[in-house]
């Protein structure tokens, strides 16, 4: 009963009926700016197709903007397009082009400052400096947007979806290309990044820093400048993502630095220079991932501890694992390694001799990168074989005691 009373009371705060204003260049209400002035809290502004050059829209009321057939909002290379500073604003179905650029301020197509429940859905962003920029905002939904920019000089371009000090935001089903970082999270908590496609961005496809308790699921990161970076973060779940084709000397499928208590499951690391690079990370569990066609599948620095790799498939990598020290505090168990040459006499599907994933030569290359030139020569092959028989340089304790004989089929 008290709850019902509360609802009635809450409803009475709103105007009797929310209106809908229609902006049409052929009708009386021609400009979006004047519609914003006319609108009151809770109104909807429907924008008919056309080209609108009206500078910066500053939204300080709860308004729903709906574009019909993608009306074009042009920032004329000077303005930010939407600046939202109110709760419950929705921006749906617009095409936003040509925002200004600046080195000091972060000009974007949609910028949110201290908002709640902002929704940015079904928009197309072309040639924007920052795409969607969220600061101090909570409960935000960014869905089904296509963001594309043409970065020529790299520092002259901002991030696609940029969130700073936010909580509970959802970034779903967006397509981002040609930005600095596709998706950038700094101090963002309890958030979800799902089913996005981030490709050909200048630096990282996804960049996480100081962002705890987040998850990213079923995203594809393809051909970005340096892959994906997750840094200084704890409790991240990464599931079902594809990390593909990140080639270059400082480029990684997934770069983990100072990550704790995270879960990396069911991802595909395909054709990267380094599939996963880990530094200073603890207690992360890698399971059921596929590492295929990478230069190094996993590079794990000696300052990592308590991480474990279980039931992963390692296929056609040049080096399966590399490390830079002899002390290893991580475990590797029950993985499939295509370079395993052991036997299974008791036919339980588990190899009877342990597998050492770190080859002697990967240690040599770690110390002296140019020696990669001699890789696949006969002598190196002999060295590796003899090291396998009597390990002396490679970390003895880093071994898979239960290597699988057949690769895992995760679909079943």
């Amino acid at each position: 009963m008290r709850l019902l009373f509360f609802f009635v009371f809450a409803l009475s705060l709103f105007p009797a009926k929310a209106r809908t204003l229609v902006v049409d260049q052929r009708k009386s209400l021609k400009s979006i700016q004047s519609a914003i002035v006319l609108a009151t809290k809770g109104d909807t502004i429907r924008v008919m197709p056309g080209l609108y050059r009206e500078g910066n829209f500053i939204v300080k009321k709860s308004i729903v903007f709906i574009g019909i057939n993608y009306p074009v909002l042009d920032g004329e290379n000077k303005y930010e397009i939407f600046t939202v500073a109110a709760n419950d604003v929705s921006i749906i179905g617009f095409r936003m082009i040509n925002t200004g650029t600046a080195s000091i301020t972060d000009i974007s197509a949609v910028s949110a400052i201290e908002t709640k429940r902002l929704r940015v859905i079904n928009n197309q962003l072309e040639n924007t400096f920052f795409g969607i920029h969220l600061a101090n905002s909570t409960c935000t939904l960014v869905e089904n947007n296509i963001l594309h920019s043409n970065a020529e000089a790299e520092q002259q371009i901002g991030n696609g979806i940029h969130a700073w000090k936010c909580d509970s935001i959802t970034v779903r089903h967006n397509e981002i290309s040609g930005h600095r970082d596709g998706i950038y999270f700094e101090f963002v908590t309890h958030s979800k990044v799902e089913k996005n496609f981030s490709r050909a961005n200048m630096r990282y496809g996804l960049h996480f820093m100081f962002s705890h308790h987040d998850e990213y699921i079923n995203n594809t990161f393809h051909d970005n400048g340096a892959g994906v970076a997750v840094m200084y973060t704890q409790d991240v779940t990464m599931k079902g993502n594809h990390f593909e084709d990140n080639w270059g000397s400082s480029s990684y499928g997934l770069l983990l630095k100072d990550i704790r208590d995270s879960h990396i499951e069911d991802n595909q690391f395909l054709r990267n220079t380094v599939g996963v690079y880990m530094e200073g990370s603890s207690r992360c569990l890698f399971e059921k991932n596929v590492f295929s066609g990478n230069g190094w599948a996993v590079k794990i620095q000696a300052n990592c501890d308590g991480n474990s790799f279980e039931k992963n498939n390692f296929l056609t990598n040049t080096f399966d694992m590399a490390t830079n020290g002899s002390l290893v505090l991580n475990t590797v168990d029950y993985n499939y390694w295509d370079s395993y040459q052991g036997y299974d006499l008791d036919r339980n599907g588990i190899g009877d001799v342990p597998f050492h994933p770190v080859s002697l030569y990967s240690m040599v290359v770690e110390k002296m990168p140019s020696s990669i030139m001699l890789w696949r020569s006969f002598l190196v092959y002999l060295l590796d074989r003899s090291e396998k028989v009597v390990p002396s340089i490679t970390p003895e304790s880093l071994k898979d005691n239960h290597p699988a004989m057949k690769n895992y089929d995760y679909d079943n």
Partner: protein
Amino acid sequence: MWAPQYPEGLEMKIWYNTLTGEVRTISALNHYIGMRTIEPSMFPEFGYISYIIGFIIVFGLASVIVNKRFMLISFLGLILATGFGALIDFYLWGYDYGHNLNPEAPIKIEGMSYQPPLIGTKQLLNFTAFSGPDIGGWIFIGVGVLLFGLLVYEWKKINDMKYFNFGFLLLAGSLIISCSTEPEQLNYGTDVCHFCKMTLMDNKFGAELVTKKGKIYKFDDIRCFINYYNSGNDDPYDFQHALVIDYLNPGKLINAFDAFYVKSTEIRSPMDGQAAAFETKASMSKFKKEWKGIYLAWGELVTQYK
């Protein structure tokens, strides 16, 4: 020569009057494929090479005393002629030695000849043979290069003093750069932060350390810079330069010890260093007010980020 069964290699040195090194082993090996035994007596050159070298030395000294350009030219000519002569002679011997095989040899491979390489590396069956000049040869080459340089110098001096100076500066410059402890620009978009591994992107922030040995560390943020500076991986006294980007002049490196720093939560730098550097005190004060920050000098900055 290297081979799987001789991983440490076999070496033969040709001196002006004799042969040294593992000549016997090489000869023994060669015997299997029908090559003759290598002996000093095979080389009639050993008899007169010492006279040729002696003559060159005397001629060189003579040209120093005479101090005329034509002597320089003829000396260079002599060096070049001797060099070419020696190479041709060596080639002819190698050809004969490699092709003229004993038909009774234990190992015979049809169509295979074993001519050693003149200069460089060559694969002979499972042997990798390398041949190149040793100390004496390098001295010889060095003299030739020096003479040529001198001639160019002389020629330039006559033709155009200015051009020469420019060229000389370029040459000297390139020599210095090759082992310099000078700082270099930060390349945003390609350089990677030494501490956090991130690609440098924001040219309002960044820093660089150059050690006395010329090693350069680049950073994307004052946080990474100070953390590395304090990490003890390098002794702070080993840094020749400590530089930081001036916030107002993106990309410009200034001396980190003399810079003025503002720390404020308003500053969004790549690694949340919350600090920006300024070259002048005036611009520091302006931004300090704008961001409601605090002013830090270098001595205070290094105590942050612990």
